[in-house]
């Protein structure tokens, strides 16, 4: 892990919904070609943090920098243009569109040639989608939906990708497949911020781990160290 190459810096982020503040004063750095996993109990603000980074909700306090540029006030669609990809936990595909149209929407801002190039690249990475391109995305299985959501996010060739519980509701075999995909994304130089309930498995493939509790960051360290921490293991990793 190269801590010199910070791609994303979240400084002192507080955010929530309306009057209700969910996360408070979170500092988090994301490093180049690294997988960082945020773990923590339900409702501790993991997803809220990702939403505040992606611009879906505006932080009430704090600063977000991507490659040392202040992006705190940028819109969600502007953030996607500068290389921030995000796959939400649920409702992460467009159900009324076909698989191909979902990918087309993923590359909405691309010129035709670039779109074709990126589509080929994405389909090479997820060949299972090739046969289903003309089919309705609403007919896909849970695992296939995750693949489509991930592919859609990759269409813009992001430098950073945030994945919110990509294995939620999937069978153990498909979970392993999705995690394999995440490892292969890392190998293609992507920086990944992962939020996972399946904490043990996620930390196993991660370089870095962050623990959230009650809207605050309580710990951050190398993933292997978090895995071996007995107290964390007892509280958040199921013993």
């Amino acid at each position, binding site marked *: 892990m190269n801590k010199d190459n910070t791609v994303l810096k979240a400084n002192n982020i507080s955010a929530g919904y309306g009057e209700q503040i969910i996360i408070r004063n979170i500092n988090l750095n994301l490093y180049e070609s690294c997988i960082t996993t945020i773990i923590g109990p339900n409702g501790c603000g993991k997803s809220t943090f990702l939403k505040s980074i992606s611009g879906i909700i505006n932080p009430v306090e704090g600063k977000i920098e991507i490659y040392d540029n202040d992006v705190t006030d940028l819109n*969600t*669609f502007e953030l*996607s243009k500068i290389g921030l990809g995000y796959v*939400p936990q649920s*409702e992460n595909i*467009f159900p*009324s569109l076909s698989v191909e149209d979902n990918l087309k*929407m993923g590359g909405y*801002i691309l010129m035709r040639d670039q779109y074709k190039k990126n589509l080929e690249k994405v389909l090479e990475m997820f060949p299972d989608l090739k046969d289903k391109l003309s089919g309705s995305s609403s007919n896909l299985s849970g695992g296939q939906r995750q693949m489509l959501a991930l592919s859609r996010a990759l269409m*813009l060739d992001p430098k950073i990708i945030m994945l919110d519980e990509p294995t939620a509701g999937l069978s153990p075999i498909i979970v392993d497949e999705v995690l394999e995909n995440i490892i292969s994304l890392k190998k293609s130089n992507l920086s990944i911020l992962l939020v996972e309930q399946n904490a043990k498995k996620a930390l196993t493939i991660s370089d870095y781990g962050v623990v959230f509790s009650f809207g605050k960051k309580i710990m951050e360290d190398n993933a292997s160290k978090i895995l071996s921490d007995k107290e964390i293991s007892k509280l958040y990793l199921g013993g």
Partner: protein
Amino acid sequence: MKYIDLIFENKIIFTLFWVILILSFFKPWLFVNGLLIGSLYSLGAIGLSLIYGNLKFANMAHGDFMTLSAYVALTLLLFFFPNSEQSTSVGPFTFKYELLAVIPFAVILIGILAIVFDKLIFKKLRDLNATPAAMALTSLGVAVGLRGLIQFIWGTDSTSFPRESKLFWDLPFRIKIPPDMFFCSVVACILAFVFYYVLFRTTLGKAIRATSDNPDLAKITGINTNRIILYIWFIGGVLAATSGILISVQQALITPVMGWKILIPLFAAVIVGGIGNPIGALMGGLLIGITGELATGWINPSYKPAVYFLVLLIVLLLRPNGILGTKGRQF
């Protein structure tokens, strides 16, 4: 095929289908009239449905945009062609060539006006996270305001586009079609087809459907949803304007309350078809048009709105989300 299957999958919709068919057998001219009027309703209903599908509120000002478009077209016509009263009409139709020249300008003007209203009012409400009920009530305020403005500028009397009387077309089975009605229906069908093509075959249309499905996800994928919303208002405005002008040509009448009155069948068409589904709105418009006209063969025409609501009631009891509506999903 799935739309035809839908008719046969439900016993009561199937019965309704047969009732319409049998009644049409006795008075086919009413069926044809209903079909032609229904196509005009469909056009208005598609615009209404498009806005509902994406912005999630019932735009009560839609009807008054229709009225405004007729007055704007009339004003442009009289301003640019003051002698249009004396000019010849188009073939078998009652309207003049000059009207065809001003319609595109009037329609685009209303489309732009719809965008202006969004920027001035609805965008601000969206930014404040206003509820759909608050948005709908605001649109009711816009509707009343627009109607007042129309009455202030053009007066409360009815008027019409310059016209020349023409004979109806006599067809077999006592079917008599006013040529204007045929023209308006053809234009409405072409526009509905163009709209369908834009929505389902173009990247812009797919972005509109994506925004309707999930606005946050659309933003994440790089779609500028604010711009998409402006396109939606423009398209909605254009469809309302075209529908308004065609209805005033077909009825040979422009009144300040025409749009408000037509809002009842339009909403009935949108709800019957499935809120937010433009294809449903098309089907709903035709169903409302046909049943309303057929009913006049047996009951007083002033009860037409009651027939619309009866159809609405029957369809909603069987399919609470409308004919093509799916819970929580538009387009």
